[in-house]
């Protein structure tokens, strides 16, 4: 039990309140309410740390902390477990994510104070990032799938708004629209998964669903995690829904850092980690959904190489980082998939499960969040100084911007996976787990090959970026200068974390203990692992060094001219293919232009000719019936009425003729009437009297 557990609500409500206040009256504050947003986020961080420390103190490290649910608002009451509610789940994973998210958001917000200083619409920016932070914190702390989906969509909305922050730029508006539409594909799949889960379990809560997963039929057990992964693919920009993320760089760099580094794209990984209750049902006798696991690992492994290859040729400093993000997320999915495969195999054999892959993927998520935030914010610092994104117009900036160049070097080393920077530990673990999974399914050897090639490419493009930006002579026309302290301070903190976050696993007795899945596990990175793993770690490190060396010889010493790769026909084709991003964006655009617009035209034609035709025919038919009815009304109904009245008039006219006004004619009538009356009364007697009746 956590004392004062209700404070976790404040973690969400502080940024939400800041959003409301800044969104409504932010323009009246200094810096458009920036200080208020930073303050709210700092409050969230403090409370998150409080919760996190409580979890750790109460045995979180060994898995002794029983997940705790802080109930809040019950939306649709029902029997316990089936009600729809907003509640916060506190377990190892969510408390760690809360700290991670609030910490990175805080640093990025502080950095924003300087970066956005000269922008118009600061209040809008701070309101939106604050709501974004609410969405992310809500996503990682949700206790049921619906709540997760709601906050997930809030994030999606905010990313749309923030990517399109400079909405007057057509590219930014288009990129925002693209991001929204592409992620929507995944969101629909996620929604379908939520509906199926509700239909099957009559509950959306993780803790209620988990023990019942064994009762699910095998097809659904495969389908549900695949649909959830579909949501993750959209949000985390995995192949084939990766196209939105590089274009999302049209937003402010701080937003790129917030969306790509800290949080939003990690939501997909988090969701997949949460869907481990489906992937690895720990109930005995249940066949795990191996197909779903293979799809996850396959898409992750493919995307990691696919995106890294595109990062190699791009000249936009932020786009390189965007492709790098896609690639690193691919690593995380590969780790989750391989880890799930190993766990599922062990579980189906009845062995003790090892959550190595699960923890490795989340370890990478944790490390990547720091070094990618660092890289994006450093890139922002560079862009701030030289006013361009194009690396061909940079170069030699290490003289003008010593701090930025140094922290970016830290970030690049972590990204490349050089010991002892954080990327080395987590990436090595993921690759080791993937290699291990190869023993259970040979496909993982191929994915391992993808992973190791990617490790080489990653190191190459990371240092290509660094050398092109900071080495050699300045090629642009601005007067670069170092960024203000309020920007460099968060950079230095993050640079520190690129070193610390990897090593943090040692005092925690292995990162696996921190996130904890299945059972407690003490595994220090690089300690007590089989000799084969040392080889694998060595291989990963070796290819990274090779990649850096290649980047050095091409872009720093220029011993190998870059043109050599594009002069051959094959090389030119490859270069063209990579710069055109495998033509996938073109294909999607063509699909939109031809198929969707064609379909719309067809529907328009159908609407105009068929639907409208039917409507008009019905209208005409109605008019014809109305005309007939009108004729009937006039001729028959009115005819009857008129006939009656006319006959009345005629009769009365005839009767009127009898009333002459001549008294004598009336008298005649009276006399004749009297005579008739008289005969009627006395006639019989008269006849008897005078004619002699019987």
């Amino acid at each position, binding site marked *: 039990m956590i004392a004062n557990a209700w404070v976790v609500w404040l973690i969400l409500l502080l940024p939400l309140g800041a959003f409301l206040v800044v969104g409504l009256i932010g323009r009246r504050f200094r810096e458009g309410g920036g200080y208020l947003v930073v303050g709210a986020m700092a409050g969230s961080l403090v409370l998150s740390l409080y919760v996190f420390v409580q979890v750790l103190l109460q045995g979180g490290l060994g898995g002794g902390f029983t997940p705790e649910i802080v109930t809040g608002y019950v939306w649709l009451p029902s029997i316990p477990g089936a009600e729809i509610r907003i509640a916060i789940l506190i377990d190892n994973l969510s408390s760690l994510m809360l700290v991670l998210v609030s910490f990175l958001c805080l640093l990025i917000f502080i950095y924003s104070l300087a970066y956005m200083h000269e922008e118009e619409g600061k209040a809008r920016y701070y309101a939106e990032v604050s709501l974004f932070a609410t969405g992310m914190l809500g996503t990682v702390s949700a206790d049921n799938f619906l709540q997760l989906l709601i906050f997930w969509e809030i994030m999606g909305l905010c990313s749309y708004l923030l990517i399109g922050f400079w909405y007057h730029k057509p590219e930014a508006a288009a990129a925002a629209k693209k991001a929204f539409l592409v992620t929507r594909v995944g969101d629909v799949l996620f929604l379908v998964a939520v509906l199926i889960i509700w239909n099957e379990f009559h509950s959306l809560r993780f803790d209620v669903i988990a023990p019942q997963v064994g009762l699910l039929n095998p097809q659904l057990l495969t389908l549900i995690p695949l649909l959830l992964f579909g949501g993750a693919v959209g949000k985390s920009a995995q192949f084939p829904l990766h196209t939105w993320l590089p274009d999302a760089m049209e937003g402010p760099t701080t937003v790129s850092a917030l969306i790509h580094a800290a949080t939003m794209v990690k939501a997909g990984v988090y969701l997949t980690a949460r869907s481990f209750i489906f992937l690895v049902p720990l109930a005995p006798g249940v066949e795990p959904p191996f197909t779903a696991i293979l799809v996850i690992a396959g898409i992750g492994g493919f995307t990691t190489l696919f995106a890294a290859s595109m990062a190699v040729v791009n000249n936009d400093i932020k786009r390189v980082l965007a492709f790098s993000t896609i690639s690193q997320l691919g690593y995380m999915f590969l780790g989750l998939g391989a880890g799930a495969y190993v766990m599922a195999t062990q579980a189906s054999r009845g062995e003790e499960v090892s959550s190595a892959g699960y923890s490795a993927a989340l370890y990478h998520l944790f490390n990547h969040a720091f070094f990618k935030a660092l890289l994006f914010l450093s890139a922002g610092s560079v862009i701030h100084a030289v006013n361009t994104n194009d690396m061909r117009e940079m170069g030699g900036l290490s003289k003008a911007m010593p701090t930025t160049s140094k922290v970016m070097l830290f970030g690049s080393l972590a990204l490349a996976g050089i010991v002892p920077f954080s990327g080395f530990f987590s990436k090595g673990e993921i690759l080791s787990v993937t290699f291990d999974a190869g023993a259970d399914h040979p496909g993982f050897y191929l994915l391992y090959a993808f992973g190791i090639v990617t490790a080489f490419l990653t190191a190459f493009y990371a240092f290509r970026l660094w050398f092109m930006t900071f080495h050699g002579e300045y090629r642009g026309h601005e007067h670069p200068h170092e960024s203000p302290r309020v920007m460099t301070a968060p950079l230095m903190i993050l640079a520190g974390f690129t070193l610390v976050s990897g090593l943090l696993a040692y005092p925690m007795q292995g990162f696996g203990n921190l996130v904890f899945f299945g059972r407690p596990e003490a595994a220090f990175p690089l300690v007590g692992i089989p000799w084969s793993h040392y080889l694998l770690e060595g291989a990963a490190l070796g290819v990274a060094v090779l990649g850096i060396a290649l980047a050095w010889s091409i872009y720093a010493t220029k011993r190998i001219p870059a043109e050599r790769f594009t002069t051959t026909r094959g090389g030119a084709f490859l270069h063209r293919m990579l710069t055109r991003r495998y033509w996938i964006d073109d294909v999607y655009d063509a699909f939109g232009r031809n198929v969707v617009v064609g379909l719309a035209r067809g529907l328009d034609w159908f609407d105009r000719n068929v639907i409208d035709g039917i409507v008009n025919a019905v209208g005409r038919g109605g008019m014809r019936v109305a005309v007939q009815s009108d004729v009937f009304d006039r001729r028959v109904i009115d005819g009857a009425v008129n006939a009656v009245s006319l006959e009345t008039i005629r009769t009365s006219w005839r009767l*009127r003729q009898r*009333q*002459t*006004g*001549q*008294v*004598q004619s009336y*008298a*005649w009538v009276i*006399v004749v009437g009297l005579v008739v009356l008289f005969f009627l009364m006395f006639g019989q007697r008269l006849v008897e009297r005078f004619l002699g009746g019987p």
Partner: protein
Amino acid sequence: MIPLQYELLLSAALFCIGLYGILARRNGIIVLMSIEILLNASILNFVAFSSYSGNPSGQVFALLGIAVAAAEAAVGLAVFLSIYQTHGTIELDKVRFLKW
């Protein structure tokens, strides 16, 4: 004593004359006079039956009838006078203002 039948026959003859006058003549004064004859025919009946039966109430009724006839003649003449003043005639087939 005159037998009752004769009296009744006379009365009936007077009645018929009066009736004829009412129905056939056009002059309003003649019609008024015919009405008087008609009334007297019925009064004669009263008197005849009264003397026949020895009941005097018939004679009382006859006197009442005469009084009524006088009053009626006075009213009738006044009506015709005023018709004459307004319409300039008392020809009954020209006096048609009772019509609608």
